[in-house]
């Protein structure tokens, strides 16, 4: 068992700018201070995040597996019933590993929202869609595109997309998909790379879908445990995540396509791609750290040089983002905040009522909460990496402890940039 029991550190105090946080990490804590208020916020937001995520992963897989190369996918967000009924591999009776004790099909709150929406009226799906009373799948796709575009973030998934084996697999699927469609086949003949590139993107749809399939039950379970009083501190919440990361690390990442009932394995499970290396770590890097500058905050003018020249230098993810403009133009996270707004647990709704503008600025208050919660998730990733690649926190060997510290410091160095929100979340007044 992973035991993040706090131990008194045997090393001299760290000289790092975030020494206090490093000591907290060395004691098995998180970057987020351990207060009941923080705990309530992050657990509540995990719950609110997990419900739309339950939609995201199903829809992502639907697009990767069924919609595939449809040139006019106007209805790609209209999820068919079998994808809503599709069993999550980590929840329900028949789970591979039962992380959440709830059911394996789509979450009931999600189903209710899809049916009645925020207008609380049962209307045809299309009307809900047109009224923008729906889950913002665009956000999930943007996360996927961030992973796809940044590509070079460890793991073997991305290099595989450039292999001849992959191209051959994709070629078979493309030809099968467009069978009997001479126009598209002709176009494929003319511009094969265009289609292959699309399939690569679809493989990332699958990748992210499989990643989130795991995270949704993890968050649901955390919410349930908190409601039952079984998670009482932020480090406990974090270690639940760390355990989850390990438990699920070996989950295969693949891309299957179903064309006329037949399965085409574009990326077969036998490639051995793993959830941790090929999905989770690239996801954290691409979405939490990098993404790309919001057009509403940075100029893309080439002469202004506000956008870095190297993808490595991109630091615009949720750990850095300024949440305050949420709701205005050019600030993409608004889509996610809006999605979470529908599913806030009552205690968070009540909590937000007490501060700032009460119900009026929930979108931003929950955005800040989300930022806090993602600092907790990042802490879990850092602790998990430390556990996997380095040494236990109570290791008797001071050299090992020093190695741990060097690792923590290296991780936090990325968060010393002025725009990082690590400083802000240390205080409860940032909301």
């Amino acid at each position, binding site marked *: 068992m992973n035991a993040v029991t706090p131990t008194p550190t045997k090393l001299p105090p760290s000289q790092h700018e975030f020494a206090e946080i490093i000591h907290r990490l060395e004691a098995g804590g998180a970057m987020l201070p351990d207060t009941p208020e923080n705990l309530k916020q992050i657990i509540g937001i995990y719950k609110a995040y997990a419900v739309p995520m339950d939609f995201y992963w199903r829809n992502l897989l639907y697009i990767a597996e069924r919609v595939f190369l449809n*040139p*006019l*996918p*106007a209805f790609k967000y209209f999820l068919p019933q079998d994808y809503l009924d599709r069993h999550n591999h980590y929840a329900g009776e028949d789970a591979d590993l039962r992380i959440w004790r709830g059911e394996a099909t789509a979450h009931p709150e999600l189903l209710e929202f899809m049916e009645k*929406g*925020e*207008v609380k009226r049962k209307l045809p799906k299309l009307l809900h869609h*047109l*009224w*923008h*009373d*729906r889950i*913002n799948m*665009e*956000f999930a796709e*943007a996360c996927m*595109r961030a992973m*796809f*575009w940044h*590509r070079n973030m460890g793991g073997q998934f991305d290099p595989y997309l450039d292999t001849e084996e992959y191209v051959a697999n994709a070629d078979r699927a493309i030809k099968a998909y467009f069978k009997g469609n001479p126009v598209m086949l002709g176009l494929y003949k*003319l*511009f094969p*790379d*265009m289609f292959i*590139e*699309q399939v*690569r*993107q679809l493989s990332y749809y699958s990748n992210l879908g499989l990643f989130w399939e795991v995270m949704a039950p993890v968050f649901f379970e955390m919410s349930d445990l908190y409601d039952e009083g079984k998670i009482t501190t932020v480090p406990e919440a974090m270690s639940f995540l760390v355990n989850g990361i390990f438990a699920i690390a070996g989950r295969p990442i693949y891309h299957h396509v179903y064309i006329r009932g037949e399965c085409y394995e574009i990326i077969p499970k036998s490639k051995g791609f793993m959830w941790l290396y090929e999905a989770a770590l690239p996801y954290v890097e691409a979405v939490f750290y990098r993404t*790309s500058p919001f*057009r*509403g*905050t*940075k*100029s*893309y*003018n*080439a*002469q*202004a040089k*506000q*956008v870095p*020249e*190297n*993808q490595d230098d991109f630091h615009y993810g949720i750990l850095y983002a300024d949440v305050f*403009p*949420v*709701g*205005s*133009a*050019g*600030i*993409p996270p*608004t*889509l996610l905040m*809006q999605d979470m*707004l529908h599913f806030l647990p009552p205690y968070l709704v009540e909590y937000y009522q007490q501060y700032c503008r009460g119900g009026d600025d929930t979108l931003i208050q929950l955005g800040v909460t989300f930022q806090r919660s993602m600092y907790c998730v990042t802490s879990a990733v850092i602790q998990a990496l430390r556990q996997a690649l380095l040494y236990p926190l109570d290791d008797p060997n001071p050299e090992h402890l020093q190695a741990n510290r060097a690792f923590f410091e290296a991780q936090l160095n990325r968060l010393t940039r002025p725009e990082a929100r690590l400083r802000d979340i240390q205080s409860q007044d940032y909301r």
Partner: protein
Amino acid sequence: MLQFLAQTAWFIPCYPLIGMVLSLLWTPSIIRRTGPRPAGYINLMTTLCAFLHGVLSFPTTWHQPPQYLNISWLEVSGLTLDIPLELSTTTIGAGLVITSLNLLAQIYAVGYLEMDWGWARFFSLMALFETGMCSLALCNSLFFSYIILEILTLATYLIVGTWFNQSLVVTGARDAFLTKRVGDLFLLMGVLAIFPLAGTWDYRGLGIWAQTATVDPTLMTWLALGLVAGPMGKCAQFPLHLWLDEAMEGPVPGTILRNSVVVSTGAWVLIKLSPVISLSPIALTTMIGVGSITAIGGSLIAIAQIDIKRALSYSASVYMGLIFIAVGTQQLDAALLLMLTYALAMALLIMSTGSIILNTITQDLTQLGGLWSRRPITGLCYLVGAAGLIGIPPLGSFWALLELLDGLWVQHPLLVGVVVLVNALTGLSITREFGLIFAGEQQQMTVRAPENFWLVTLPTALLAGATLHLPIILQRLGLLPQWSALNHAAGLLLVVSSIVGCSVGVWLYVSDRMTKPVQLPWVSVQNFFAFDMYTPTLYRSSIVSGVDGISRLTDWLDRTVVDGVANWIARTSVNSGELLKYGNFGQTQLYLLTIISGVFVITLLLLRSLL
């Protein structure tokens, strides 16, 4: 039915207006529990209605004399301000171009801005532009044209400012507003000055007046220059061209509309005013001069830009410059035709490059490359747009430029040279962009670059189709010259210049022969154009610092001299230092009040004795 639609064509601008008002529901505080996308859908629908209305009423106007309508607006002290409308093939045709481009731009925006939350504001502004431009097309009065241009100036400010959190957007919006406003105010001066002379603002009336008018030449020159200055700002002509560059901070879908049709609004007014302006030879020469400088300078600047959007924005100024030349030499038909062919080609170029920007993140031409094999549709659309922009037969602009050349051929050989040179330079400029984006090696940012999804790609492809079909439509409408009537020499010259320009572009930027980035041997010359001939610096050191300095001086005068003297008088006249400590309410103030009341009463008593 069709007749009814044709008669009610004045309603075309009202559809987008309805859309605009409805989409205000989603701006802050009204509908907030659900997202803002319906605002976009509503505007798409209203634009579609406007477009269909135009399409259906267009054929009935064909070969018919223009219809004139008057809508009364204001009548005051002998000044009657009716809104005169002209419903004719040209005006409804212009409305069609506007609504169709806006329709495509809005579909494009639904895709391009799918991650954006500012839909209501953005789409309502797109609708406002559509309303404004359609009414400008229909409206037949200088006064109302001025009103519309001024409202569009405000709309430009707001639409460039869509992403107002970003600092360069803020300055860009400011500069766009102020530059256009400067032009507008000159136009307003012209509007004010022409009325006492002509007694009307109706374009028809002005035309009739201009035939017989005898005005003091100096006055006429100033008046005509004022009337030209307004369109100069709108058309981003030198020296009022800077705003278009900065306006590129706005979202791409807005740019599509702005660079293709909004900039032409000025040219449209200019064409309408051309009988008046032609009363002043100096104004005509100025127009030709400004147009030529902008056309040549702009194409050189465009070649030196590293930002895709900016390179194209300077090409917009260039073509507006050509239109200035056309109007300046009284080639109104050529000007109108060029406006049409240019609008489609430029919109297409912006759409296809916008599609690149959307998912390769960077706008920097030096960071792109190697996209052809994976983005062939966008690449083809770009090529169609490029071919449609410069003089390559049989696409649209070839005919427009040919008509222009034909008109210049005999009397203005120098201008023929200018047009041909500009055509070649633009050819070079757009092949350069093509080479840097699509040819060459993949770079970091272009390794993963799939073709965009249908909401972005489909409107681009549709527009490419329209650009390709434009010559056929022109042929049907009888707007293309007969083969026998062609000026073959001019045509040949034009084709050769296009080929030369493009070949140089291909040689430098598409083939592997040259190392990128291509450097001129003279860095200072390259920088001179890359930094827009240093006009921003020039502005900062002249007008901006001038206004700033004078305003500071005024403020200083106000604080020290004016206020100081007043205080000094007060102090000495009341002659009580204590009284004027300007302290809190206290005895002194009470004292003062008593004095005033006393004076008041005494005056009354005095009066009694007086009378």
